[in-house]
């Protein structure tokens, strides 16, 4: 179905490539419409084709003392566990962390890129970039690649002049400010434990334990999450890694094996 796009043609004459120096406001923008059979639905199909599920559990929440960030460390390709020791909490700079969910390469690259941009901002403006600013930079970059197959579901956690900051940013171009987030296939399970145990005025140890337990429970039920539960704390002096516990060991810590009482014991029958 060929649409009538004459209404989209711009009326102003276009004098070759408008020079940035000569005029900031040249011809009105016009765009070409793609040649497809299903104009309204083709984009959705394309997205579904490239959208891999984000097999992971990451979470972060703000509390009185700062921000707590935790994640598992399993990488899976379908049913195959490709690694149990992936670093899913990325250190953007000494006072900002990013979490990885989705495509590992995409997350690692763009977080690294964000770290570069934050450093350049510091050098140019002689002050650190805010968490708001950093998350916005990332969100704008991801938005410009929208529909091209990037898979990033990340949380930017940090401490700046205005206190603790936490933003969720994804490859659809969404960006949300919030107090608690969990991202990944194990997030429903993590949310259950997190929402149940959350109080704003927890101590750092209590918050770390809550984060650890939430990741553990997610890894227990979700096949795509597992490995090591890492817990980081972001405070006024920057981030600090608090713990990295194997979730198998955590399981036996939380649910130690009870020797069960036996009613009858089998007795060796002597003789032939």
């Amino acid at each position, binding site marked *: 179905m060929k649409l009538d796009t004459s209404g989209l043609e711009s009326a102003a004459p276009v004098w070759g490539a408008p020079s940035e*120096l000569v005029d*900031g406001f040249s011809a009105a923008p016009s765009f070409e419409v793609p040649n497809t059979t299903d104009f309204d639905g083709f984009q959705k199909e394309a997205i579904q084709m490239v959208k891999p599920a984000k097999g992971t559990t990451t979470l972060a929440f703000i509390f009185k003392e700062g921000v707590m960030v935790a994640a598992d460390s399993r990488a899976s390709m379908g049913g195959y566990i490709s690694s149990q020791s992936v670093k899913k909490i990325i250190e953007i700079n000494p006072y900002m962390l990013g979490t990885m969910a989705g495509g590992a390469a995409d997350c690692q690259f763009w977080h690294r890129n964000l770290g570069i941009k934050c450093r350049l901002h510091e050098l*140019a*403006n*002689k002050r650190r*970039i*805010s968490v*708001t*600013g950093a998350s*916005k*930079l990332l969100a*704008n970059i991801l938005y410009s690649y929208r529909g091209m197959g990037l898979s990033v579901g990340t949380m930017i956690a940090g401490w700046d*002049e205005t206190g603790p900051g936490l933003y969720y940013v994804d490859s659809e171009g969404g960006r949300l400010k919030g107090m608690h987030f969990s991202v990944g296939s194990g997030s429903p399970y993590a949310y259950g434990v997190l929402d149940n145990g959350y109080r704003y005025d927890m101590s750092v140890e209590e918050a770390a334990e809550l984060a650890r337990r939430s990741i553990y429970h997610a890894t227990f039920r979700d096949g795509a999450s597992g490995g090591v539960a890492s817990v980081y704390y972001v405070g006024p002096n920057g981030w600090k890694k608090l713990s990295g516990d194997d979730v198998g060991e955590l399981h036996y810590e939380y649910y130690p094996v009870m020797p069960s009482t036996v009613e009858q014991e089998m007795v060796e029958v002597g003789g032939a």
Partner: protein
Amino acid sequence: MARYDRAITVFSPDGHLFQVEYALEAVRKGNAAVGVRGTDIVVLGVEKKSAAKLQDSRSVRKIVNLDDHIALACAGLKADARVLINRARIECQSHRLTVEDPVTVEYITRYIAGLQQKYTQSGGVRPFGLSTLIVGFDPYSGVPSLYQTDPSGTFSAWKANATGRNSNSIREFLEKNYKETSGQETVKLAIRALLEVVESGGKNIEVAVMTKEGLRQLDEAEIDAIAAEIEAEKEATEAAKKAPPKEK
């Protein structure tokens, strides 16, 4: 020398960019502008050439704001100023959009100076013929600042400065009489400096005051009142100078 001043992109053998220097000449012919920084306030004053009878003086605002917390005054080609101001205003909003923060005074000054520099290193264009005085308060820290840019694209921060006609005499006056002031004292200092080279009266100067709350243009009556105060103080010091010898 004639061979080296046609194009902006040509250095002279002794290292001058003549077009930039000619642009500075244009600034020197422009109306005087002065800026003074206080502890909690920054004041901008600009000389106003007497308005033609039929001209609506309200349309000729010489001190403009770039954002709620940043204002700009300039000396030189006013038409060039309009272009620079528009680009700066867009950049202020663009910054708010990308980092969700208002610009700092230093940032927007750096942007304007960068723009002025770009036009000294491109083919087929000429430099902007104006120097700007940019004042404002940094968001969050609330520190007042005064910056100056010029056609070459350099910029620096100042406690007090002047540009345009007779800027050297104004700057000399400021160097002699500057001290840390606040509030109305800063306004008086700025007007005193401007009145060194401008005929006294609210009709001939435009003054705007930037505080944490924002930009406020002083109206003629206020300026007249302050100018009268300054006159009275001047006369008092003159009289005091003459009096003591007699008392002895």
